[in-house]
C-alpha cells in the first residue's frame, strides 16, 4: 500500500507527536464518543422498552383473570346458581312462545280490521285465542314460583359467600399487620381478627335445598305437558291463509317445546354441584361467552364475544364505506386530477385526519344520529332494510364517522403506493395505445395492489382501535346483533371492545375480577393490533416493487 515518506525530519517530529497524542477524556476505559454513542443508543432502545413495558403491564394486570374467573364460575356452580339458571332458560324459552302468540293475535286483528270489522267485533272473533293466551301464561306459573323461590335461596347463598370472602380478606389484613407492630398493638389486631366471623358455608346442604325441589319441577312439567297438549288441540283456525300459516308455525313450536321438556329435566337431573371448573371452561367463558354482565346481583359474566363481534362489525361496516372512497380519492388525485387540484385535495384530506375523534363522536351524537334517523323515517325510503331506525345511535352512525377517520389513512398510503408505481410502466402501457382507464385498471392498480392492501389493513387497524367515536355513537348495547334482520343489522346498536374499556375502566375496583377482565380485553386489542401491523408490513415487504 501507499506510504508517504518525509524527506525532512523537522516536520515529522511535530506531526508524529500530534498524531499519537492521547485523548484527554476517558471513563472506564472508553472515550467520550463512545459514551455519547451509548447515550443515543439508549434512547433508541426506549421504543423497545416501551413495547415490552406495554406487554408486561397488560399481561400482569390481566394475569389474575383466568383463576379469578374460574373461581367466579366455581361459586356459580357450587352455590347452585347454575342449577337455577337451567330452569330459568326453560321459562325464558317458554315466554318466547307467549310473545309469538301475541304477535299472531295482533296480525290477525289487523287482518280482521282490514276486512272491515269494528274493534269489539274483531275482539269477539279473537276470544278463543285470548283464552289460549291466558292458559299459556297460567301453565308456567308453577315453574315461575319454584324458580323464584330457588332464585332467592341461591342468591342469598351467594351473598353469604361474598360476605365470607370479604371477611376473610379483612381478617387476613388484620393478621398481616401483626408482624410489623409492637406487642400491645399486635394483641389488639389479633383480637380484632378473632372477632371477625368468617362463615363456613356448607355448600352441599345449601344445594340440597335446591335439588330437593326436583320432584316438584317434574310434577310441574307433567302438568305443563298436559296443558300444552290441550292448548295445541284448541288452537283455532282462522280461515285466512296467512294467519293459518302463522298459527301452524306457533303450533309447531309449542309441540317442539313440549317434546323438549324431558331434555330440560334430564339436564337438571344430570347437574352436579361438585363438578370442577376447568381452566378451559374459564377461558371459554371469556373467549366465547355471549354475555358481558357486570355488577349483577345474580352472576357476573365476562364473555368478550359480543364486544369482539361489535368491534369487527363496526370496523367492517366502516371499511365498506372507507375503502371505495379512499381508493377512489387516491386514484383521482394520483391519476386524474390536475396539479392544482392535487395541491388542494391532498392537504385537505390530511387535514381531515387531524379532526379529534372525540369531536367526531360529539358530532355523531349532536347531529348525525338524529339527522340519519329523521332521514330514515322518510316514507319512500322504507324499502331500505333496517329503516326506519329504532335508535339514533347505532352501528351505522359510528361506522360512518369511523369511515371519515379511516379515509385519510387509506388515502395517504394508497396514494403513496400508486406514486411508487414506476412511471415507465404507465408510459409503456400508454405507448401501446391503451386508454388512461385501461392503464389504470390493468397496469397501475395491480402494480400498486400490495401497497393498497397494506393501506386497507392499516385502515382496519386504525378503525378497530378507535375509541371515542364508538363509545359515543355506537349505542353501547352489549349483545350480538340480530343477524336475521339482514342488511338492517347495520342499524342496530352494538358495543365494542375499546368502548367497554373506556366506559368501565374508570369505575371498577382496582384488582377486582372486572378490572382484570378489562385488561384481558386490552390484551386482546393489543395482540390484534400487532397482528394487523405485522400483516401489513409483511405484505409491503413481500410484494415490494423493484425501484428504479
Amino acid at each position, binding site marked *: *500500500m*501507499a*506510504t*508517504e*515518506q*518525509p*524527506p*525532512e525530519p523537522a*516536520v*515529522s517530529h511535530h*506531526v*508524529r507527536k*500530534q*498524531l*499519537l*497524542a*492521547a*485523548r484527554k477524556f476517558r471513563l472506564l476505559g472508553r472515550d467520550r464518543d463512545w459514551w455519547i454513542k451509548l447515550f443515543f443508543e439508549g434512547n433508541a432502545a426506549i421504543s423497545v422498552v416501551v413495547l415490552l413495558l406495554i406487554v408486561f403491564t397488560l399481561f400482569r394486570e390481566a394475569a389474575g383473570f383466568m383463576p379469578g374467573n374460574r373461581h367466579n364460575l366455581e361459586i356459580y356452580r357450587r352455590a347452585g346458581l347454575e342449577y337455577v339458571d337451567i330452569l330459568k332458560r326453560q321459562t325464558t324459552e317458554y315466554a318466547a312462545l307467549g310473545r309469538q302468540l301475541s304477535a299472531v293475535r295482533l296480525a290477525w286483528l289487523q287482518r280482521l280490521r282490514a276486512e272491515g270489522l269494528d274493534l269489539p267485533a274483531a275482539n269477539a272473533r279473537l276470544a278463543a285465542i285470548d283464552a289460549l293466551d291466558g292458559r299459556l301464561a297460567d301453565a308456567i306459573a308453577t315453574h315461575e314460583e319454584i324458580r323464584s323461590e330457588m332464585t332467592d335461596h341461591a342468591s342469598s347463598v351467594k351473598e353469604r359467600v361474598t360476605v365470607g370472602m370479604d371477611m376473610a380478606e379483612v381478617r387476613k389484613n388484620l393478621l398481616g399487620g401483626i408482624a410489623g407492630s409492637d406487642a400491645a398493638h399486635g394483641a389488639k389486631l389479633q383480637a380484632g381478627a378473632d372477632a371477625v366471623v368468617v362463615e363456613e358455608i356448607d355448600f352441599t346442604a345449601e344445594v340440597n335445598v335446591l335439588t330437593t325441589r326436583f320432584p316438584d319441577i317434574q310434577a310441574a312439567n307433567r302438568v305443563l305437558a298436559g296443558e300444552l297438549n290441550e292448548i295445541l288441540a284448541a288452537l283455532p283456525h282462522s280461515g285466512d291463509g296467512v294467519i293459518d300459516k302463522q298459527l301452524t308455525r306457533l303450533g309447531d313450536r309449542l309441540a317442539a317445546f313440549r317434546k323438549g321438556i324431558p331434555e330440560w329435566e334430564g339436564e337438571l337431573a344430570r347437574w352436579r354441584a361438585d363438578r370442577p371448573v376447568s381452566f378451559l371452561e374459564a377461558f371459554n367463558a371469556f373467549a366465547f361467552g355471549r354475555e358481558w354482565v357486570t355488577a349483577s346481583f345474580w352472576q357476573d359474566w365476562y364473555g368478550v364475544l359480543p364486544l369482539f363481534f361489535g368491534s369487527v362489525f363496526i370496523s367492517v361496516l366502516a371499511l365498506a364505506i372507507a375503502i371505495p372512497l379512499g381508493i377512489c380519492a387516491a386514484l383521482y388525485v394520483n391519476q386524474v386530477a390536475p396539479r392544482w387540484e392535487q395541491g388542494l385535495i391532498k392537504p385537505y384530506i390530511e387535514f381531515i385526519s387531524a379532526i379529534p375523534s372525540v369531536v367526531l363522536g360529539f358530532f355523531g351524537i349532536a347531529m348525525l344520529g338524529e339527522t340519519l334517523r329523521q332521514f330514515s323515517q322518510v316514507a319512500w325510503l322504507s324499502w331500505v332494510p333496517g329503516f326506519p331506525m329504532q335508535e339514533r345511535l347505532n352501528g351505522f352512525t359510528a361506522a360512518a364517522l369511523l369511515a371519515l377517520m379511516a379515509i385519510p389513512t387509506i388515502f395517504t398510503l394508497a396514494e403513496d403506493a400508486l406514486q411508487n408505481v414506476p412511471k415507465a410502466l404507465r408510459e409503456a402501457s400508454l405507448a401501446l395505445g391503451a386508454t388512461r382507464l385501461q392503464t389504470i385498471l390493468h397496469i397501475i392498480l395491480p402494480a400498486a395492489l400490495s401497497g393498497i392492501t397494506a393501506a386497507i389493513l392499516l385502515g382496519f387497524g386504525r378503525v378497530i382501535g378507535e375509541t371515542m367515536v364508538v363509545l359515543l355513537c355506537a349505542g353501547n348495547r352489549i349483545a350480538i346483533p340480530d343477524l336475521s334482520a339482514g342488511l338492517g343489522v347495520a342499524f342496530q346498536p352494538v358495543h365494542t371492545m375499546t368502548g367497554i374499556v373506556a366506559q368501565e375502566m374508570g369505575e371498577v375496583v382496582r384488582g377486582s375480577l372486572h378490572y382484570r377482565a378489562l385488561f384481558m380485553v386490552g390484551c386482546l386489542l393489543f395482540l390484534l393490533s400487532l397482528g394487523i401491523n405485522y400483516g401489513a408490513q409483511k405484505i409491503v415487504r413481500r410484494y415490494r416493487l423493484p425501484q428504479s
Partner: protein
Amino acid sequence: MTLNVPEKQVTAFIGPSGCGKTTLLRCFNRMNDLVDVARIGSGQIRIDGINIYDPQVDVIELRKRVGMVFQKSNPFPKSIYENIAFGLRLHGIRQKAKLDEAVERSLRGSAIWDEVKDRLHKSALELSGGQQQRLCIARAIAVEPDVILMDEPCSALDPLATTKVEELIHELKEKYTIVIVTHNMQQAARVSDHTAFFYLGKLVEFAETQKIFMNPSNPQTEAYVSGRFG
C-alpha cells in the same frame, strides 16, 4: 503496491471510473471509517512513518493534519466567515482577532479574498460553484494541515472556474503536500508533478508526470493517456 507520495508536491491519481482512486484517497484520512464496506485489509498507510491505522492514532488529529476537498463543493449553509472559522473553532481557537486573521489568511491563500472580502457574513451558498469550491479549499487550509486531499475538485466546474482552481493548486504546493484525484488527464498533466495510473483496483504505473504522459513504460498506461479507452 507501494506508492511514495512526495512532500510539498502535487501527486495526481488518474484512471477510469471505478478503479479505486477515490477509495484510496479517502483511506488517507480515514474517511472510509464511515463506510462499512471499505476496510483496510492488509498493508499500511504511513505518514511520517506512522501507520495511520494504528489504534493509537487519533483519527480526529489525523483529519486535522490531512485535509480534504470533495468532488461536490459542500460549503456549510452558514456565512463565508463561519465556514472558515468552523474548523478553527473545533480546534479550540476562540479569540475574535485570531479568527479574523486566520480567515483572511486562508481566503487569501485560496485566492478568493478579493471576491468575498465585502460579503464575509453573507451565506456561502450564494457563491458561484467555482467560488464555493475555492471556499472549501480555504476551509481546509484554515486548520493548517500538512496534506490536502482533493477528490475531483473541478469535475462540477466550468472551464473558467477550473482554471482558477488549478492556479490555486499550483500556488498551494509551496506549502502543502497535495494529492488530487482527477478524471481529466489534461488537468493531471497541467497541475501535477507525479502521476499514478490506476486500473481495475491496481496501481499500474507511478512516475513523474512528464514520463507518464510522454513516455509511459506500461502499454495500458499508454493506451489510457492517449485516449484509447477509459
